């Protein structure tokens, strides 16, 4: 029997217990919670508390954090192809605290992978997998795979470009398993196409099946851990201690440190901005959100999350082996490695076996680390390579066009030189690959920023989803369409400064570069930068420029009537005073609806009269109500307006535009019977709007 008197129960002589104590007694009598607490806290730690035992606890803590943040995220997430990105955008950018919630979930997931590796390493090095703890070790390995499964499925849920493309790769790899692969893939993605059911299934896996299984296994894992007791690292030099409070303190400090690191990753950019005196946009703190998933856009920046990068790189080892190589790299070798790990408790029965296990684990982790480093080096190589040393090789490469015979001739048939140069060419190749990745990453950032800007419009996101909005945005689609359909002839370059075309964002994306830099020199049709504005018209009416590459210089109209007029008639100061020409320029910009707001009405009227004049522009061009017959020169009624641009892109051979004297421009909106036109009306609208600079700008930026 108990020698300890129960205060408050054994009569009036016992000292009075506080209210809390009484409540505790009441509950303990009915639940026995004290015994449970005691069982949980007073576990003997042989040799006393040690830092090396904290990893398991930090993992449980990380998982609890994911559970808490995940449940709250769940309260705002919507799993469908038309709402996933949108709801994550809303969490990240519109909900109070959403950025912090998502940031913790995102980075704690990454911390968890690191902690997993540390826990595994500690268990293997300490030989904690040995009898009688084999089953618990196996459970741990299953738990590890469940965690990695949650990481993989969670990556897709925002339905942004990077998650989407990474998941396509991952599910396609599952599809190469012989026999059952295609069925597995179809089951995982919920059909043949990635869409609503891919998301609902991934979400159910991520937030239901996998964590449910994990909790069940974790309970057994912990129960077995308590059953066998803590496996102490030998030799034991200090006296035993209790789990509570010594080991708990170490565990708690480690947990706090993990959380501090996660918060640090989220908040450091904010602190930096604060110190620099900049405004902090909380929406851009924490986890990234890319542009919405678009199956129609190439995405060269597709990479798995960093902890899967080693697998991604490992597959490259088998390059050239085809599907067999992928099967080996993605399924067989990882499967074998897991197999060896499962056998570790048995291998470890022998002393040498234990050493093998430790070496194997270190080898696998080290190999993964090396592969990760290799992958990063390949992607970011262009950042740290000395480009100056490659300039000569680049020049030679451009000259010889990669032709072996030409190269040999250029190097005087010196085998040593040729071999050295080939090595340099190889380096160049690596730089090109890396640069392509860096460019794509940069472009992805620009696209993401634009999508987020668009989502913040007062009209919000259309019911069909964000992708529709992005696809109808002239600012993002214009450059793509222009590059695909127009840039083979036309340039789009600021002739004054040769800066990237979009000065709004002042970005230097690959798309910009394609449209600028050397583009003007190579172009064979007019530079369309600021087409419709006074600056463009001023160049056209400049005798020095009209026959240059920015206007008619590389076209069939190089010696045409217009060039002749600008070079001979306009230079006659008697008939064309400088004020007159300026008035014409301003009036033309006004016709396009792009005139400077400061342009005086009187000047515009004067210009309009000059243009319509049958002895001046009006002798060839129709304008105002001058009734000049169409066909001899483009119609200037509504010149540069949206309607006019759409018209000329649709059919430049129409009598309103160049008619029979059209140079090489295709009729993009017209097609032979039965065939589809090269561009849809919507695409032509997008190009016209982009050329005119008409797209959504947030109110704050407009000020």
């Amino acid at each position: 029997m108990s020698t300890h008197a129960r205060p408050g129960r054994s009569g009036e002589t016992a000292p009075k217990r506080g209210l809390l104590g009484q409540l505790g007694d009441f509950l303990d009598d009915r639940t026995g919670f004290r015994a449970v607490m005691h069982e949980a806290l007073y576990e003997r730690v042989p040799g006393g508390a040690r830092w090396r035992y904290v990893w398991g606890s930090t993992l449980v803590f990380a998982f609890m954090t994911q559970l808490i943040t995940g449940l709250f995220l769940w309260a705002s997430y919507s799993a469908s192809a038309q709402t996933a990105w949108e709801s994550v955008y809303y969490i990240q950018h519109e909900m109070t605290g959403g950025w912090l919630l998502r940031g913790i979930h995102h980075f704690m997931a990454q911390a968890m992978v690191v902690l997993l590796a540390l826990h595994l390493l500690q268990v293997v090095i300490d030989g904690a997998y040995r009898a009688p703890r084999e089953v618990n070790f196996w459970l741990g390995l299953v738990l590890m795979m469940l965690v990695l499964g949650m990481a993989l499925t969670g990556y897709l849920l925002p339905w942004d470009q990077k998650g989407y493309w990474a998941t396509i790769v991952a599910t396609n790899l599952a599809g190469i398993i012989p026999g059952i692969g295609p069925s597995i893939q179809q089951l995982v993605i919920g059909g043949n196409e990635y869409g609503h059911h891919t998301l609902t299934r991934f979400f159910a896996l991520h937030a239901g099946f996998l964590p449910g299984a994990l909790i069940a296994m974790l309970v057994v894992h912990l129960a077995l851990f308590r059953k066998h007791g803590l496996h102490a690292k030998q030799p034991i030099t200090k006296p035993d201690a209790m789990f509570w409070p010594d080991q708990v303190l170490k565990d708690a400090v480690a947990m706090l440190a993990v959380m501090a690191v996660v918060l640090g990753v989220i908040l450091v950019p904010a602190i930096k901005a604060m110190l620099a005196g900049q405004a902090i946009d909380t929406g851009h703190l924490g986890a990234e959100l890319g542009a919405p998933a678009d199956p129609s856009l190439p995405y060269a920046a597709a990479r798995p999350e960093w902890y899967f990068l080693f697998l991604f790189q490992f597959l490259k080892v088998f390059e050239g082996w085809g599907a067999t190589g992928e099967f080996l790299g993605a399924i067989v070798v990882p499967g074998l490695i897991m197999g060896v790990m499962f056998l570790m408790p048995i291998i470890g029965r022998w002393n040498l076996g234990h050493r093998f296990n430790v070496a194997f684990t270190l080898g696998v982790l080290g190999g993964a680390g090396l592969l990760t480093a290799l992958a990063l080096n390949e992607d970011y190589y262009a950042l740290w390579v000395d480009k100056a040393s490659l300039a000569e090789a680049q020049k030679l490469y451009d000259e010889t066009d990669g032709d072996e015979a030409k190269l040999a001739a250029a190097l005087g048939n010196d085998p040593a030189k040729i071999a050295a140069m080939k090595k340099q060419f190889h380096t160049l190749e690596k730089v090109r690959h890396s640069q392509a990745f860096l460019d794509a990453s940069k472009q992805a950032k620009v696209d993401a920023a634009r999508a987020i800007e668009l989502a913040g419009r007062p009209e919000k996101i259309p019911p069909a989803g964000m992708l529709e909005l992005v696809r109808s945005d002239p600012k993002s689609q214009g450059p793509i369409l222009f590059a695909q359909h127009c840039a083979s002839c036309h340039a789009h370059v600021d002739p004054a400064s040769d800066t990237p075309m979009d000065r709004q964002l002042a970005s230097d994306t690959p798309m910009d570069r394609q449209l600028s830099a050397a583009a003007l020199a190579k172009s064979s049709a007019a530079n369309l930068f600021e087409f419709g504005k006074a600056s463009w018209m001023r160049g056209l009416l400049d005798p020095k420029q009209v026959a240059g590459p920015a206007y008619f210089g590389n076209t069939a109209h190089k010696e045409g009537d217009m060039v002749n007029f600008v070079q001979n008639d306009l230079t006659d100061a008697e008939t064309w005073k400088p004020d007159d020409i300026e008035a014409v320029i301003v009036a033309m910009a006004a016709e396009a609806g792009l005139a400077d707001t400061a342009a005086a009405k009187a000047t515009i009227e004067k210009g309009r009269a000059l243009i319509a004049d049958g002895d001046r522009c009006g002798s060839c061009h129709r304008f105002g109500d001058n009734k000049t017959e169409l066909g001899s020169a483009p119609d200037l009624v509504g010149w540069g307006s949206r309607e006019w641009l759409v018209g000329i892109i649709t059919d430049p051979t129409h009598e309103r535009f160049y008619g029979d004297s059209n140079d090489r421009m295709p009729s993009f909106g017209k097609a032979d019977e039965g065939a589809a036109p090269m561009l849809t009306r919507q695409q032509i609208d997008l190009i016209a709007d982009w050329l005119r600079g008409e797209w959504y700008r947030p109110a704050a930026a407009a000020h």
Partner: protein
Amino acid sequence: MSQHAHDRQTHAGEPEGRRHFLTKLLAVVCGGLAVVPPLVAGVWAFLSPLSRRGAGAKFLPITELSAIPDDGVPRQFAVIADRVDAWTGFAAEPVGAVYLRREKGSQQVEALSATCPHAGCFVEMEAGGKCFRCPCHNSEFTLDGGIVAPSPSPRPMDALECRVAKNGEVEVMFQKFRAGIAGKVAQQ
């Protein structure tokens, strides 16, 4: 010896020094601090709806005056307005319904919200057109929205501000009122 008593004994036998107390306190504080950020972030985001504002009341064009027969019988009209649902913006969508009614020869229009003031169900016209009835709890209202006692509804149907523009367009100040209370209090 019972398990219980055994526990207490071991407990009593442990050192309870000052260092031990500090260790316990530190352990609880560190562990507690570690779980604060996810909880704070979660609750912070969860409470985010409280800071959201409704669309606000404004006059919306409903119909033409001529579309409302001047026979004193209410007619149901859809309310079309732009609507924002979290991240989605809907343009010109049916967002609710109002009853409009006009007395013989009158140019004045009376507007009633179709939302029952009791629990928010959609109030319907009874088949004969003699009164309103809510299908949920049988609240009955007269054609001018008056309460027919005894009624589960704490107040008459909510009248809405209504005006007729010069071109004959009928505009209603469409807004929602809190259900279940005697007073007519606009929802924020």
